């Protein structure tokens, strides 16, 4: 269990209610999106990590920007302010140390989200 920025304890980082409603409960569609998420998120995390190592603000900005859409589909809303802050810092090409700190939070929550999706995917087979 982790806490969000306001200190509230979060049991699940993903909220699949939105996705389930959006897909009209169609299991194969939900599973397809989950599969894409499981492939795409590690790729995006890797791209951000590499960009941080190379202090490439432009790539950090682009990938944090695109990740906002991916995580919002799976209802990982607690990542939106983290990604927004990273994107803003990268856009102004400053404070790589703060970006690194936020990236740790991003990586942790993404890994929890991946675990949850892997676990919940079974329900949509």
């Amino acid at each position, binding site marked *: 269990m982790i806490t969000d920025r306001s200190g509230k304890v979060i049991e699940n980082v993903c909220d699949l209610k939105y*996705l389930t409603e*959006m*897909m*009209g409960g*169609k299991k194969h*569609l939900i599973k*397809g*999106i989950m599969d*894409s*998420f499981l*492939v*795409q998120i590690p790729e995006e995390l890797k*791209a951000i990590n590499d960009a941080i190592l190379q202090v490439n603000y432009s790539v950090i900005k*682009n*990938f944090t*920007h*695109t990740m*906002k*859409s*991916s995580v*919002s*589909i*799976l209802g990982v809303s607690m990542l939106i302010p983290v990604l927004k802050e990273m994107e803003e810092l990268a856009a102004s090409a400053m404070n790589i140390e703060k970006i690194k700190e936020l990236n740790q939070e991003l990586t942790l929550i993404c890994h929890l989200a991946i675990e949850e999706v892997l676990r919940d995917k079974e329900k949509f087979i």
Partner: protein
Amino acid sequence: MDKKNKVGIFIVDDNKVFSLALKSEIEVAFKDVCRIEVQAFETGEACMKKFKEEKPQIAILDYHLNSKNVNAADGIQVLDMIKKANKDTNVIILTSDDNIDIALKSFHHAASDYVVKTETKFKKINYSLFNLIKVSEARDEAKTYKSVSLVLSVLIALVIGAVIAITIIKPSLLK
């Protein structure tokens, strides 16, 4: 809405999770409304390869199409390519930035609509699609009526012409 004619929709977004979710959402939302075929592409270049043969009625483009691949064409460049290939395709531009300059730029390049990726993005996109499909159908009907009335006018003119010609050349035929 017309269930006979198929509406082709192209989605171009380099975020696969997003485009897959959007594709599925549109298919679910329009299932009982009209026949649609949605195809998703990761780049504008891939979209254009298929575009020329299919000429879809609607294209939904992400503004930041080159966020992952910096060498890829951006949303506005793809919008220009689409309009050059078929000016009748309606284009909806999507972006996470609520920025008036992007909206104005999109409309200046002949986009039909501009949707910001907020929490209600899918509802807004569906609403926009619904309107565009209705406008497109109305335009097609107007074209059909125009053609029908043109054919009727020509026929009537021919009949009148024939009657006048007969009256002059052989009036006995009309008695």
